[in-house]
Structures are given as C-alpha cells and as structure tokens.
C-alpha cells in the first residue's frame, strides 16, 4: 500500500464518520460538526494528492485547500447563525422535533 493510499483511506474514514454523525445525531449543531469533519476529510485528500501526484503546476492543490478552508469557515459561521436563530424561534435544536413546515 503506497503512502498515498494510506492518506486516502484515512480521509475516507473521516468522511464516513462525519457523514454518520450528520445523519444520526439529533442536535443541529452536531450535524454541523459532522459537515466540518467531511470538509476536513476532503481537504486532506486534496493535500495528499498535491504532495504525491505529478505536478505540472506546483501550487494548485495547496491553493484549492486554502480556499476550501476559507469557504468552510464562512459556511460554519452562517450555519451556526441559522441554528441560533432557529433556537430563538422554536426554543429547541432537536431536529426530530422540527418536522413541520408550519412555524
């Protein structure tokens, strides 16, 4: 098993753990935690390919990962703002209870 395969397997494992967390937990914030884990796993993939792949362009992978980090931070901020706002309205963050369209 090449080193690259090792990193890809770890990234796949982290991705599926994040996916399991996003799909099974009740609290909306834990869903966002799962999403952050998935984004980080994708970043690990990008950097692993940047390191071990052939580079006609030595910078692309690193730039992609840096932009991904920035966008993920912005998305986390907006997502958490939404969760706080929903909590103010419904007084709960339990996703199993938020199963109606009526406010």
């Amino acid at each position, binding site marked *: 098993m090449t080193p690259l395969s090792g990193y890809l397997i*770890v990234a796949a494992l982290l991705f599926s753990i994040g996916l399991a967390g996003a799909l*099974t937990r009740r609290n909306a914030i834990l869903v966002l935690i799962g999403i952050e884990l998935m984004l980080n796993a994708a970043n690990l993939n990008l950097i692993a390919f940047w390191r071990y792949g052939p580079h006609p362009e030595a910078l692309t992978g690193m730039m992609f990962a840096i932009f991904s980090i920035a966008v993920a931070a912005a998305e986390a901020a907006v997502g958490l703002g939404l969760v706080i706002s929903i909590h103010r309205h419904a007084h709960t963050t339990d996703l199993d209870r938020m199963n109606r369209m009526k406010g």
Partner: protein
Amino acid sequence: MSIAFYLIAALTVAGGLAAVLLKNTVHCALALTVAFAGLALFFLQLDAQFAGFAQILVYIGAVAILVVFAILLTRGSETPKDGVFSKNWFVGLVIAAGVFAVLGWAVLQSGHVLPHETAVPVVTVLQIGNALMGRYVLPLEIVALLLTAAMIGAVIVALHEKESAK
C-alpha cells in the same frame, strides 16, 4: 508508512469518532478540535506548511470557538431527555458504512495506478503570495466577497429575531 503516520491517524480518527459519539455536546466540540489538530499534523507531515498553519489558525482558532459559542447560546450543554441519537440512526449508519466501503474499495483497487512518491514540491510563502495576486486573483476576490456576505448575513440572521421579539 512511518509510525508517525499511524499515530496521527489514530489521533484524528479517535477525535472524529468522539466528536460524533459523545453525549455531552461541548465534549463533542472539544473532540472535534482534537480532530482538527490531528489534521493539521497530517498537513505538516505532507510538507504543506502554509495549509497546516492556516488550518490551526482558522479551524482551531475560529471555527471551534464559533461552535462552542453556538452550543452555549442554544443551551446545548444541558443533557437531552430523549437520547442523543435520532430515531432512524441505523439507516444513517448503514449509509455511512456504504459510502466508506465504496470509497475504500476504490482506493484499494486503484493502488497500481496511483502516482508514486515524487519529489517534495517546494512551495514558499512568496510563491503563494504571488500566485494569489497573479493567477488566483479572481478566486481571491470572490472569496473575499463571499466572506463579507457571510459575515453580514450571519449578523443579520442572528440579530434580527431579537428586534422583532421586543
């Protein structure tokens, strides 16, 4: 596959597992921080210095604190009455296991076509700076706009309710 790789992998996966399995939400957020730190160590091991330090600065220094503040503001640190996993947790687990199986199989099957160990790409901060201002200036400006919009949007979304509640 050095011992450092296995140690960091164990740390990261343990952090990730703890982040989705623990009952106390704040403990989950702290375990997520451990997972972020493990990933930063991976980036440093892969000779991506700038990405590793940016990961620590942005994720541990900002996103983890955001998550923790949100947990505190939504009373998430109180223990839930009905359990922490939703009713259809088994389906979610099966889906995640399926995704991992497909990805793992794809990686292991294609072991012979994956690129081998090549020379370390030497990327200095000067090159990153020049690239950001040269070739990647358009994505940079778009990300700046995105961050501004996200900041203003988050402030409005989190602030507006209080005005109407008065």
